C-alpha cells in the first residue's frame, strides 16, 4: 500500500480547489503503484496504461467529492477496480493466453527477484517460469477473486482497506482471498516458492 502523508493530503485539498498542478503531483506520486495494480488485474500492459489514464481523469472529475474518510489511495484502488470491471478486460483476460513480459522491470529498472533460493544454474529460468505461471494463474481467476488477492498480496492492503476498495463486507473479503489462494495453489503447483512459512 502506498504511503500517504500530510503532504499528500494537502495536495488532495488543493486539487479539490481546482489546482491542476497539485493533481499532477498526485498523479506522479501514485502512478507507479496504480499501474502495477492495473497490470496485475488485467495482465496486459496496454490496458493498464489506458486504464491508469482513465482512472486519473475520473479521479480529477470526482476529487471534489472525496471526503477523506478513506485513504486517497484506497479511493484510487476502488476507481481502478471499477475501471477494470467496466471494460471487462480482466474478465476477457481469463479467456485468452496473454504473454506476460518476463523482463518486467521495477521502478528503478531492476528486476525484483524472488527471495534467494539457492544457486542452481537453472534458477533464473525457473523463476521466470514461476512468474509466468503466477500471472497466468491470476489471469484465470474469477475477477472478484483476482481483485481481492491482488489487493492483498501485490498491494499489501489489509482486509478493511480491501473491503473499502471493493465496497463489499469484510466477510466477503475473507472468503474471496481464501478462495483465491485455494485456486491459485492448484494452478501453480510445482511453481510455488518453497521457503518455510512463518509459524507453520
Amino acid at each position, binding site marked *: 500500500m502506498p504511503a500517504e502523508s500530510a503532504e499528500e493530503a494537502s495536495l488532495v485539498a488543493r486539487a479539490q480547489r481546482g489546482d491542476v498542478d497539485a493533481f499532477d503531483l498526485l498523479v506522479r506520486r501514485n502512478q507507479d503503484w496504480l499501474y502495477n495494480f492495473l497490470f496485475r488485474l488485467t495482465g496486459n500492459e496496454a490496458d493498464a496504461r489506458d486504464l491508469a489514464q482513465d482512472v486519473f*481523469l475520473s479521479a480529477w472529475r470526482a476529487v471534489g*467529492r472525496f471526503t477523506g474518510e*478513506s485513504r486517497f489511495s484506497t479511493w484510487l484502488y476502488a476507481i481502478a477496480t471499477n475501471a477494470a*470491471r467496466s471494460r471487462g478486460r480482466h474478465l476477457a483476460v481469463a479467456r485468452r493466453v496473454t504473454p506476460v513480459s518476463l523482463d518486467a522491470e521495477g521502478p528503478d529498472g531492476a528486476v525484483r527477484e524472488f527471495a534467494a533460493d539457492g544457486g542452481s544454474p537453472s534458477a533464473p529460468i525457473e523463476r521466470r517460469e514461476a512468474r509466468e505461471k503466477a500471472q497466468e494463474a491470476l489471469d484465470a481467476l474469477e475477477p472478484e477473486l483476482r481483485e481481492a488477492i491482488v489487493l492483498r498480496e501485490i498491494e499489501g492492503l489489509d482486509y478493511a482497506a480491501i473491503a473499502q476498495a471493493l465496497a463489499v463486507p469484510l466477510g466477503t473479503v475473507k472468503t474471496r482471498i481464501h478462495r483465491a489462494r485455494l485456486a491459485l495453489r492448484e494452478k501453480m503447483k510445482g511453481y510455488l516458492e518453497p521457503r518455510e512459512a512463518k509459524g507453520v
Partner: protein
Amino acid sequence: MDCAQVRERISEWLDGEILPAGRAELERHLAACAACRAEGEALSAVSRTLRALPRKAAPPGIAREVRERLAREQLIGPGAPGARRRRLFLPRWMKGMGLAAAALLVVVSVGDWGGRLPPEEDAEALRSPSVELEIGRVAEPTDGEKLGIGDAQGLSLKDAPPALETAEPLPEKLDDDKIPDGVRTGSIDRLSDGPQEKDPPGSAGGKGSLPSTRSLEKAKEIQEEAWDERFEDGSFLGKKGRARAATSPERDQDDPPLGRQRTAAPIEVCFSVPDDGTLERVLALARAEAPEDKNRDLKKDGLRSLGYETEGQEQPAQREEASSLRVVERVLTADELARLLADLERIGAVPDVSWKNLASPSASSSEKKKDSSAPRTYRLVFEVTPGAGR
C-alpha cells in the same frame, strides 16, 4: 476447532486478520495437526510467490498524457474539477418505490449498440461508465410520498469511487421537478403490458406516484431538453426499446405480459448494456453474494413481505397501480449496471438471479437467425428486503 474450521480460517490467520481468541485455538490445532500445517504452508507459498512478482513501473508519459486529456476534454478551468454530480436517471417514483420497500424487476436488454451513438463515440461510450449512480433509501415517506421515498439518501458510500468517466460528460440527472409527473412516468406505461389506465386520483401529481398514461415520445421530448447532446437523439433509449415502444401491441402478442404473470408485479426497468461479458460477470457475482436466508424468506412470503405493500398507507387505486407492469427504458453502460447492482446489494437488495430468470421474450428465434446482432432482451429480477438498507 476441527480441521475443516481451521482450514476455512487459515487464510485469515496467515494474514494476521484472525481475532485473538480464534488465533490461539487455531494455533493449538496447527501444533497438533500435520495435515493442517501442510495446508497452511501451501497457502503461505502462494502468498510468497505472488509477493515475489516484480513490480512494474508506470511507463513514462502517463502524467503528461493525463494533463493533456484534462485540457483536451476541457476539464481544467472555471468550475473544475468537473464535479458535477452525475446520477443515473431513475424516476423519482422508482426511487421511492423500489429501493427500500419494493421489488425491482430489471429487464436487461443485451445486444447491439451500433448506431445509437455516433461511430466515433461508440467505443468510448462503451468504456465510459458515464454516470454515477445514487440510489437511496429514505427513512420515512412524507405526505404525498406514500409509495415514494423522496430524495435518495444515505446509500452512496462516503468516498465511494466515481464511475469511470472517460468520455464527454454525460447529462446531469434529469431534474425531477422539471418533469411533469405524468410525462415522467408516461414512458413506463407505454411499454407496459398492463391496461392503459388513466391516472388514479391523486397519483399523478404526487411525488413517488406510480406511472400514469403518457407517451414515450412525450417523455423523450422533455428529457431531451434537459439531457446533453449525447442523449438528444434519444440514444438513452435502446434501439430495441424504441422499437418496442413503437410497437407495443405487437409485443403483447409475442410476449406474455409479465404483469399478469405475477400477483404483485414489481417494477420492470429495461436496461441495455454492452454485450462485453460484464453482465455475465456481474450476474455471477450477484449469485455468489446472494444471502440464502433472505432469498428463502422472500420466496416464502413473496411481495407481501415488502414494505410498500404492508405499510397500508396507499390508496386502493394506487395499490392497483402497483400490481400492474411498468417498464422504464434506459440504456446503461456496463459500469452503470455494475454500480446499480452494487448499490442494490449495499442497501440490502437480494438479487434473485439465475439464468432461468433470463429470458428472451421479445425476439423470436427466426428473427434472431435473420439478424444475429439484434438485441436480446433478458429479464433480471431483484427483490429488496424492506428495511435492510445499511
